[in-house]
């Protein structure tokens, strides 16, 4: 049974990195989509939402085409930095990041759009620069909605299967995450291992959903 902790640790590492990347990317993209007007804004929103509706295996295939050894990005990374992403845990991070990305930027966009622009104007008149307005007014008022999206993204990244398998494979101790390990255990007839892995995954996901549920309907961001 000790073997079961290794995929759990790997899963948390992959999901943790994917969530961190999404926190930065998703908040940035969500803010731009909420506050800037430019042609093609809704088209960009739709394109960035695709990972939510496309089958993960299709996404995984796209990723293989892009970052695989002969893909444009993969070949470039190999030639300039000697980096290879396919069949590594970093590859799994990229797969999980892309799959979970819409959850963060969608929540962030909605949260930023819910912030009254007049409050930002009030801050400007009071002498604040744009960065200070963002960190002192916009972000504190939007963070609950963003955090809820981030927690959902973490849960989604924890459960990632299809794209991860396509990009990172199932190398025990290296790229074999919980959900992939469950599949392998069932295939190999190791029901006790499968039971344990499934229980761990379920508890993790329920805990994250409970945390997200407490944040979503929250009152106006206040007493913090």
């Amino acid at each position, binding site marked *: 049974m000790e073997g079961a902790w290794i995929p759990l640790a790997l899963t948390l590492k992959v999901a943790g990195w994917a969530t961190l990347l999404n926190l930065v990317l998703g908040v940035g993209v969500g803010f731009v989509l909420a506050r800037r007007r430019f042609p093609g804004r809704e088209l960009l929103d739709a394109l960035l939402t695709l990972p939510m509706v496309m089958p993960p295996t299709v996404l995984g295939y796209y990723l293989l085409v892009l970052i695989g050894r002969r893909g444009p990005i993969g070949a470039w990374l190999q030639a300039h930095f000697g980096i290879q992403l396919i069949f590594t845990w970093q590859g799994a991070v990229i797969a999980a990041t892309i799959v979970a990305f819409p959850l963060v930027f969608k929540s962030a966009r909605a949260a930023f759009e819910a912030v009254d622009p007049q409050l930002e*104007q*009030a801050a400007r*008149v*009071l*002498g*604040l620069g744009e960065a*200070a307005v963002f960190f002192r007014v916009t972000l504190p008022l939007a963070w609950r909605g963003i955090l809820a999206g981030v927690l959902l993204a973490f849960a989604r990244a924890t459960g990632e299967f299809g794209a991860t398998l396509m990009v990172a494979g199932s190398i025990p101790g290296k790229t074999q995450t919980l959900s992939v390990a469950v599949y392998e255990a069932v295939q190999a007839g190791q029901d006790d291992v499968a039971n344990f892995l499934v229980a761990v995954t379920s508890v993790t996901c329920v805990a994250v959903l409970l945390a997200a549920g407490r944040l979503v309907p929250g009152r106006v*961001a*206040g*007493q913090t």
Partner: protein
Amino acid sequence: MTVIWDVDARRRFDHARRRFELRVRFASDSRRLVLFGPSGAGKSQTLKIVAGLTRPDAGHVRLGGETLADVAARIDVPARDRRLAYVFQDYALFPHLNVLQNVAFGLQRGWRNAAREVRHDEVQRWMRAFELGPLSHHYPEQLSGGQRQRTALARALVARPRALLLDEPFAALDPDLRARLRDELADLQAELGIPLVLITHDERDVRRFGDEVIEIAAGRVAGPGALRDDALAA
């Protein structure tokens, strides 16, 4: 005679349903100036152009001879550097900050908000002046209309602005309170001596504050005071 306000601004707004063109031009040497007109006439947008929150398509804004914006000369002092106090119609208090933090907002530099117990002489002075001391740790949603207005005024005045811009400051209040706060504001302005521009569609505000009244209707200055060449030439 010195000109305090010299505004000549044009701006087109393309909304989904209607197109609105604002074309306001006025000069005034009054320390109490009222922009009067029906809602939707362009009063708030005029004030936002003065404050630097809306950028004019053409024209200029000058205060006491200093150019705050001049499209032709490519001058556009950012709102944060204009040192104007702006009180929004519904006060725009920061809901995530308590009264003390709201009042201290403009004095606090950097990317972080003031601590909940922030101490600052200037802040204390205005908290006392507006009798906000007992409400220091209340959040805006816990305040009455009059308390919100006083918090908004204190927040605007703490940074020693050179003019006070008020957008329908009494509209959100009930009638009794309105009359009292009108007197308070008039006294305050007399004491501070800084120029005040007040927007309203209420004739009682006009009677109390209108040393000079500029009427705005359908995006244009109407009636007397529209543009006085002698004032501009001074």
